[in-house]
């Protein structure tokens, strides 16, 4: 099986405004592994804290070997995603709201559980206070 692939995910800014755009790029230096099964790119928010967790995906894009879309994936891949008005990033004591861009790559033979997830966290709020 292929060694763990190298993927870099970079955002143009980590402080975004509601209904603004999240721009960035991800790249597989040297290309994705030959036995890549799928690559997924998503932008999502999730909660963490003491209680039940929640999650919302605002953008999802996938390239798969099974439908021959993998070869068409640009590498590097630039993206610009329109963000929703809410929920705003929040760092509370009982609940936190995280925003992140996420790359997930699965590789190996069918049934293999080999996967790698890379996250790049950013904030969504009307006024940037990093």
């Amino acid at each position: 099986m292929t060694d763990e692939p190298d993927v870099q995910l970079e955002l143009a800014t980590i402080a975004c405004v509601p209904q603004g755009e999240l721009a960035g790029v991800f790249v597989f230096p040297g290309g994705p592994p030959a036995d890549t099964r799928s690559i997924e790119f998503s932008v999502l928010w999730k909660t963490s804290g003491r209680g039940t967790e929640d999650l919302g995906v605002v953008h999802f894009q996938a390239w798969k070997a099974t439908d021959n879309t993998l070869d068409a994936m640009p590498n590097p891949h630039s993206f610009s995603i329109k963000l929703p008005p809410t929920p705003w990033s929040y760092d509370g004591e009982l609940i936190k709201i995280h925003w992140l861009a996420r790359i997930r790559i699965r590789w190996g033979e069918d049934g293999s559980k080999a996967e790698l997830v890379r996250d790049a966290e950013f904030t969504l709020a009307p006024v940037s206070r990093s």
Partner: protein
Amino acid sequence: MSRVGRLPRVNPFSTHFVQPGAIPYQFATPDGLAALARRLEATQGFGEIIGPHGSGKSTLLASLLPALREWQIRHVRLNTTHRRFPNAALRLLGSGWLLAIDGFEQIGPVQRWRVKRHCRRTGCGLLITAHRSMGLPLLHDTRVTPATAANIIRELLPAGSEQTLAGFDVSARLRHHRGSLRDVLFELYDRWEACDSPAA
């Protein structure tokens, strides 16, 4: 400083890291899971996992079920907000099936008797978790020792953040919470927030 728009810091005691299944159940011996599977086989699939609230019964069940490959499993989770036993879960169960009920004491004694009788009559196994014995062969008691609790806490804490535990007596806190490791971890969640807060 406003908490809105701030990059949230990760609390190592948040639900994501401590929910059932997130922390592997810690046995005293390395072959704990395999030994439990063998014991359940020896009792024709009848057994109970007992222990106090928050001591890892659901975590153990979540770890054990995938190891029971000889059985077809129907898993029912009951708790204080979902107390009604789905009678449909009994349909079509028979030999080769294992009914796993997490929180068996949530249903009434008559329903418990019915479930046990149904499983005995049909040859279906019955594996339950409960706070006290429900009259099935004891498979495992999940009472948490202070040493196990300390191990789990150490594994959750990121390197270099041991100061969060300064003056925290794990043994005393475990006693205070009547053996509930979950409540100890909730307390540590709050302690982490207090230590990690910019206002602190």
